[in-house]
Every structure is written in structure tokens, then in C-alpha cells.
């Protein structure tokens, strides 16, 4: 038994702390395109008798048309309802019955499916993924059932939660291009409008082998795995390329701001989103360091000044670049402490933003940001699933799965002046959208 990956992680962890000058050793992988256009990435790691499979489809809520918001996610649910050789629910049943885990997840930019299983069940995973890519079972009964489940998901996460609608309102206000101007979960009206024909056409257009990346990471043999992949997947016919998507977002010229009422909330919340470039932009690394300086942990500027010293926010103040493939958002959010004015909270957050632009960032803050970023990358590399997901995503978004090997170094090269520069360039009032959520009185009794 080899343990080729373990030394790699040891070296890179040491590098995180600058304790060893040794360069980060690469994650080795093969990158193959099948005849039908399916991109296949295989990375061996024999440190544990487990493997992960990810299938990343190049479709997300950004591909939805008006009147069909929420459809990409509703479709994801249909992928567990059976195919030619797999019964409804049999896919999850078999994965869990054999000790594994699995799920699907949809965001603006992609739809991801994954399995983790013991090493002896590789054929099972490949069979299940291939069968539904080839021959999804599309029935009115299945659609109706999952429509109800998804509407419950919306109620659970959005309509029955305090601040549940806030982000939806923010996205709709921040964007002009429809692609990102709606939520992933979609509206009840649009979910109700989805038809079996929509499912069939979406499947044909987007769930084609030439519109997906398959990544397999773990205790597998590359050669035999690739042979199995060919056996299960290569006869699935390719399809004409999906229609091109215009992601152009007109430049924002002035601040957008609104206030909404929320009958489930008891404290007001401030949500701000600043326009930033797509995640593939070189600016992304500096923006990520900026988010650590502002909001990473209890030594961060927002926590120390706004939460601990001024006691204006309850909980924390979050600040992060959303990592969108298209025009992105740098999101900042905080809930006012009881009895504190939302205007004071906003002013305190703005003061810290202006300070990061104007005054030097200290060395320890840069060290912390480097350590945090690289440590989170390295710990994600400790899991075969994380590697499968990252390899698939970098292949799809950047056409560069090797970004998994270069990202940490890129973040380490960010300087304090880079961070100040992106703060000055992007955290500007004219490029932001602000949503203030206020409790609607009379809310639930008491507690105020």
C-alpha cells in the first residue's frame, strides 16, 4: 500500500507556516476527454480505503429564463427519482445502505452531485451516475412530488425564517442582468409553472456529457478506473452546446438601497453587497485576504470594533466575496444589537472600511490571512470529497483543474497594498446595494 498523498500534505502544512521553504507538492491527476465530450479527472490517494465522485454540470440558476426561477434546483431533485435501470430513490438507498453518503447541490453557477463510498464500490457509483446522465426517468408524478418537496424547502429556508427574504431582495436589487437577478430557490409561482416538458428539454440541453466534468478522487487505480468510466459513460450521446449566456452586467453608477419589513424578525439587520469582478479575476485573492482582515475570527477589525468595543452588532459581522463565476458580490451583513440604531451600525462598519483603505494593514493581520487561507485550503485537501469538488469546479469554471495546486501560493503573494487597493476600488458607495430589514410591528409578543 502506498501513501503518496500523506507526504504531500505534511510538506504543504509546514509551508503554510513558513517553517519550511519547500514548495507545495502537486496533487497529481489525469485529465481526459471522452469521445462524447465528458471531461474525466482522476486523482489517486491510497491513504484511506475510500473514494469520492463528483459530477459537476455546467448549469445553474443563472441559466434559468424568466418565469422559471428555481428550475435548475427543482431539476436537481428529479435526478434522484430514477432512470432506466435505477428506481425512484434507489440511488440514495444504495449509497447509504453501503455505508456511503451522497447529495446534490445547486447554486447560481453549477449543479453538483457527489458520492463517497468504500473503495470496493466504485462500479456502483459510476453505474448510478452514468444511468441518470443517460436516461433520466421524467414523469409527471415524480415532478409533482419533488415540486412539493422543493416548495417546502423554500418555506423552511426562506418564508418561515427571520430575514429569509432579505438576500433574495438584495440580489434582485443589485443586478440588472436576469441571470443573477433572482434567487436559486426561485418563486412559488415559477415552481408551480414548471412542466414535464421543461424537465425533458432542460435534461437534453444541460445534462449532456459534453456539459459536465466527472472527478474521481481516492483509493482507486487510474487506469482501471478510466476503463470503467469509458464502459459506463462513453456511449452516452453528446448534445449540441447549450445556448450561450450573456452575463454582461451594466456598471453600477449609484448606491441602491431599500428597506423591507419582516414579520418574523425581532432585530433589524443590515445587508450590503458591493460589486466585484468574477471569481476567476486576479483580484479575487486580494478580496479574500480583505475579508479575513475585516471579519476573520475574533481578532478581526469588524469583531473587535463593531461587536466587542462598540457593541452595535449582535453575533458577528460577516464579510466575504461570493465567488461567483460572473459579476460577483462582496457581502457584508450584521444584525443590530438590541436597542442600537441600524444607522450607527452602518456608520461603524463604514468607518472600518474607510480605515482599511487609509491606514496601514499590520503585519500580523497579513500573516493571519495567509495562514487562514492556506490552512483552510490544506484542510479541504485532507478530504477526498473536497478535492473532487475543487478539481471539478476549477475544470469547469477556469478550464484549469491545476488551480488546486496554485491557489494557495497566489493568496500568499497578496500584499498589504493589494488589499488596500481592492478595498479602495470595490468597497465604494456607488457600487453597492443596501437592504435594511426591520421587524414589522406588532411582531410576536414580548422579547423586545
Amino acid at each position, binding site marked *: *500500500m502506498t*501513501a503518496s498523498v*500523506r507526504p504531500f*500534505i*505534511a510538506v504543504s502544512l509546514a509551508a503554510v*507556516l513558513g517553517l519550511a521553504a519547500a514548495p507545495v507538492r502537486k496533487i497529481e491527476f489525469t485529465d481526459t476527454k471522452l469521445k462524447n465530450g465528458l471531461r474525466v479527472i482522476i486523482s489517486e490517494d*491510497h*491513504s*484511506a*480505503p*475510500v473514494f469520492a465522485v463528483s459530477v459537476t454540470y455546467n448549469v445553474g440558476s443563472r441559466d434559468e429564463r424568466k418565469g422559471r426561477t428555481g428550475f435548475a434546483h427543482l431539476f436537481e431533485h428529479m435526478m434522484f427519482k430514477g432512470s432506466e*435501470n*435505477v*428506481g*425512484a*430513490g*434507489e440511488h440514495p*438507498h*444504495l449509497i*447509504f*445502505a*453501503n*455505508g*456511503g453518503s451522497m447529495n446534490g447541490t445547486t447554486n447560481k453557477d453549477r449543479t453538483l452531485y457527489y458520492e463517497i463510498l*468504500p473503495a*470496493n*464500490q466504485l*462500479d*456502483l457509483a459510476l*453505474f*448510478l451516475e452514468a444511468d441518470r446522465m443517460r436516461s433520466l426517468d421524467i414523469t409527471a408524478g415524480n415532478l409533482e*412530488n*419533488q415540486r*412539493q*418537496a422543493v416548495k*417546502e424547502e423554500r*418555506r*423552511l429556508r426562506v418564508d*418561515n425564517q*427571520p430575514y429569509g427574504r432579505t438576500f433574495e431582495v438584495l440580489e434582485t436589487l443589485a443586478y440588472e442582468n436576469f441571470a443573477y437577478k433572482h434567487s436559486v430557490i426561485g418563486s412559488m409561482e415559477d415552481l408551480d409553472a414548471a412542466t414535464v416538458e421543461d424537465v425533458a428539454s432542460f435534461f437534453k440541453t444541460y445534462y449532456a456529457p459534453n456539459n459536465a466534468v466527472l472527478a474521481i478522487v481516492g483509493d482507486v487505480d487510474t487506469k482501471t478506473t478510466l476503463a470503467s468510466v469509458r464502459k459506463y459513460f462513453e456511449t452516452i450521446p453528446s448534445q449540441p452546446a447549450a445556448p450561450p449566456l450573456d452575463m454582461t452586467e451594466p456598471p453600477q453608477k449609484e448606491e441602491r438601497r431599500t428597506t423591507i419589513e419582516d414579520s*418574523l*424578525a*425581532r*432585530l433589524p439587520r443590515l445587508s450590503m453587497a458591493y460589486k466585484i469582478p468574477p471569481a476567476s479575476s486576479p483580484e479575487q485573492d486580494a478580496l479574500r485576504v480583505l475579508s479575513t482582515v475585516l471579519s476573520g*475570527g*475574533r*481578532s478581526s477589525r469588524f469583531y*473587535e470594533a463593531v461587536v466587542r468595543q462598540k*457593541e452595535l452588532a449582535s*453575533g458577528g459581522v460577516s464579510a466575504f466575496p461570493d465567488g461567483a463565476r460572473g459579476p460577483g458580490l462582496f457581502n457584508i451583513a450584521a444584525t443590530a*444589537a*438590541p436597542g442600537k440604531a441600524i444607522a450607527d451600525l452602518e456608520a461603524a462598519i463604514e468607518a472600518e472600511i474607510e480605515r482599511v483603505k487609509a491606514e496601514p494593514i499590520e503585519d500580523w493581520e497579513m*500573516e*493571519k490571512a495567509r*495562514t*487562514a487561507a492556506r490552512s483552510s485550503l490544506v484542510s479541504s485537501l485532507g478530504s477526498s470529497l473536497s478535492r473532487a469538488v475543487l478539481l471539478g469546479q476549477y475544470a469547469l469554471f477556469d478550464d484549469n483543474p491545476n488551480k488546486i495546486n496554485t491557489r494557495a501560493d497566489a493568496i500568499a503573494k497578496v500584499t498589504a497594498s493589494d488589499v488596500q487597493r481592492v478595498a479602495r476600488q470595490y468597497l465604494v458607495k456607488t457600487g453597492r446595494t443596501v437592504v435594511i430589514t426591520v421587524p414589522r410591528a406588532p411582531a*410576536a*409578543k*414580548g*422579547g423586545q
Partner: protein
Amino acid sequence: MRPRGNLSVALAAIGATVVLTAAIHAGRQQEPPPAAGLVVKGKAPVSNEILKVTLPKPQEADLPNGLHLMVLEDHGLPRISFQIVIPGAGGYYDDPGLTGISSYTAQMMREGTKTRTTLQMSRELETMAAGLNVSSSIAGQTASVSGGALTENFDRLFELAADVLLNPAFPEDEWNRLRTRARASLIQQRTQPGFLASEMFSKVVYGSHPAGRNSATPVTLDAIRRDAMIELHRTRFVPDHAVIAFAGDITLEEARKKVEAKLGAWKKAGTAKPGVEEPPALGPAKVYLVARPNSVQTNIVVGTQSMTRSNPDYIPLTVANRVLGGTMGRLFRHLREEKGYTYGVGSGFSATHHTGSWQASTAVRTAVTDPALTDLLKDVEDMCEMPVPDNELMDAKRAIVAGFALSLETPEQVLGYYMQSWVYGLPKDYWETYPARISEVTPAQAQAVAKKYWNPERLHIVAVGDAEKIKDVLAKKGTLEVFDTDGNPVK
């Protein structure tokens, strides 16, 4: 399954090989359990290879101050994590007028020591990307100090951990700040339907027993004083009955040296082993409604008391619960996959030194509260009335055992199992024989525990939702009591 890499080699001498008897039905076609919401065509290739995994065992030692030391070596990664569990320092033992004081004491230990401010502590930890957490659960019997770091940084982390444990300063100004933040979260949690449901359920199942505590209240929070926290720390954060466990890139001898060097001043206090009392017997089953205006869903919890951790029913109930409310279990297949009432539904149970609780829970749109609750109760009743078909039981057992095997991949998880053994005094070979004992559960045994614990007469119902729309529905299910979101009875 092959033994895993470095760990199985390093620990072969002290580990035990466990044959995963869930693979006993080698060659058997996995057939569909008799339930709607799942169609099994049986065409997918499933390997029935016999799986073997090595279950590593920790090395253990007893230290002079009463501390029990456990070490699970795994040198695969240059990382070490640790956890100190302190019986007697949990919220279970809080004065009822000061509910939450253990929890806040634990949080305050991280807010400054005799030589470090809270901000210095944050900077030191975050610049080395190390974690350090002190916590005490609101109703549990223990407090915990835990953390993890790269091997190179571990001594620095452990130094901070020892400082937090032995020298907290409880600065008055930091307590004022923490209390302000705590007040906000006491308000915020009341907006969450899940919190309201579990708060009511705990009260229903445990009554005034300490296990029924769910949160501090504004009144108890205001009553907590710095002096009382200092006294609590002095008298209850003691090593007499505590355990310290290390996992990762460390040996028993190294661990012992670190503990002696940093925790040498943690002296035995001579306190008796803290005990617990059983909760009072459950009253007759009732229905409790928390009226949450503007709810578009009803959160439902159906449940009752369970058993103690050492009760032999634990194993068959684990299997029966998996069939009913586990992943892809009957509740999920019926309420979600067949009926579309909900996004998620499941069941689970707890068991400690005292009797714990069992509950099935879900959130459904208001309009289907009645049929969803009826179906849920029917699924529970079926478990009592009919034996689980062989194939369905086999699949549940196989899923538990295979899932257990995959969970052995991380040393922290393995150590977690052994700490459970230590805390509850489970038999030495408990985890080695666990797969076999799960596999041996028969349909009759699963039905017997279902009957014993899930008898409809024992099942209390809690609902959180729009009272106007669901009050009548709930009143049909039993004697109804209604409360507002602050827990006050509503006439």
C-alpha cells in the same frame, strides 16, 4: 475494505480486526423494503466483498491528580487535537435560579486570563490557525476544553489551553460585554421555530428535571455575577473525574509530559463523583402548541423518554430507529418522497447517565399539518404493531455497520467512541463487538423496543405554527395546551 494506511500498520499490535458482518448477506440481491417512495430495480452493481477494518485502540493512563489520559496515535498528518471532558461542570448542576451559569463561565474562561487579554488570545490563536473552545452544555453533565493545531504549534496551543483552564481572570468589563451579546442571542433564538419546538419538547419530556433546560433566560442571565462564576470555576472545573484525550501526531509519553508540564498545577479537589437523578415519570400524553404568528409551516416534534446509555435496549432501538427515521427511512419515504409534505423528516434519540429522549421531527406546510401528523404517527404505530420485514431490517443494519466503518477514518471520531465508553462505563469490547451486535438484532427485538418506547400512549406532540389554522387539528389529537413564543400559556 482494506486496512487503512499508516494507522492500521502503526497500531496493528493493539488494534482489533473487525469483520463487518453487514456484509453477511453476500450474494443476496438487495431487495426493496415494502414501502412507497422507493422503487428498487436491483440492477446496479453492488460489491458484496467481505469488508474488514482495523479498529484502533487508544493507549490509556491514569495521572496522580485523577485525570484519565487517552491517546490515539495517528502520524499520518502533522496535526494534534485534544479534548478535556470535565464531569460535574455541566449546566445540569446549575442552581435553577442561575440556569446557564456553567455555560457562561466556560465562555468567560476564554475572555481573558491573568496574563492575556481576550484580544491577545484571539490574535495568538488566529495567527497560527489553531482552534480553542471552552464549552458547557445547558443541560448536560460535563464541560469541555478542546482544540487542535499543527504539531509545530501544538505546544503553544496547549500553553494557551492550560492558561484558559487554570488562570481565567473573569474580567468584569468582558462579562458586561458578553452579557450584552448573550441578551441579543436570547432574543434572536425566539424567532427560530426549531428552537421553540425543542424548548417546548424538553420541558414536556423532562418537566422541571435539569435535563429539561434549553437556555438561560433574561432573568437568570441578569442574576449571574462574576463572583459566582469564579467560585463555579474553582469548585467544578476540577480534574478528579476528568479525562484528557489526544488524537493525531503524538505518543502516550509525549502526551503525558505535556500534561505534566502544563497542567501540573491542576490539583485534585477531593470532590465526589457527580451523580444524576432520573427524570420524573412522563405524564399522560398531550399536545402542546406554540403559537408563532405568521408561520407558514408547522414544526412538529413527536416524542417521549428513552433510556440510559448503558441500557441493552440501546442497540435494538438504534436499528429500529434507523428503519423508521434514519436516512431514507420510512418517515422520509412516506412524508417526503411519497406525499411531498416536507423537505426533511427524521427521528433520533439520546441516552446519558439518566434517561434521555426519543423524537421524530419535521416541518410541513401549514395546510398539511393534519395528514402529515397522522401519517407520522401511523409509521410509528406500524413499527409497534408489525415486525420489520427481513430485507428492510438487513438494509438498515448494513447501513449502520458500513457507516460505522467509514467513520473510523478520522482519529478524532475513533477517540470519540472510546470516550463514550469511558464516560458511560461501557464494556471494554463494546466497539469491537458493535457491528456484530447490530447485525444480530432480529425483527422481533426491533418490534419489542418499538412497542416499549413508542407506544402511542407515551407519545407527546409539540407543534410550532400558526395557531389560528392548526389549533383545531391539534385538538383532535389529544388534550391541547397553547403557549406564546415566550413560553407563556395562552388562554
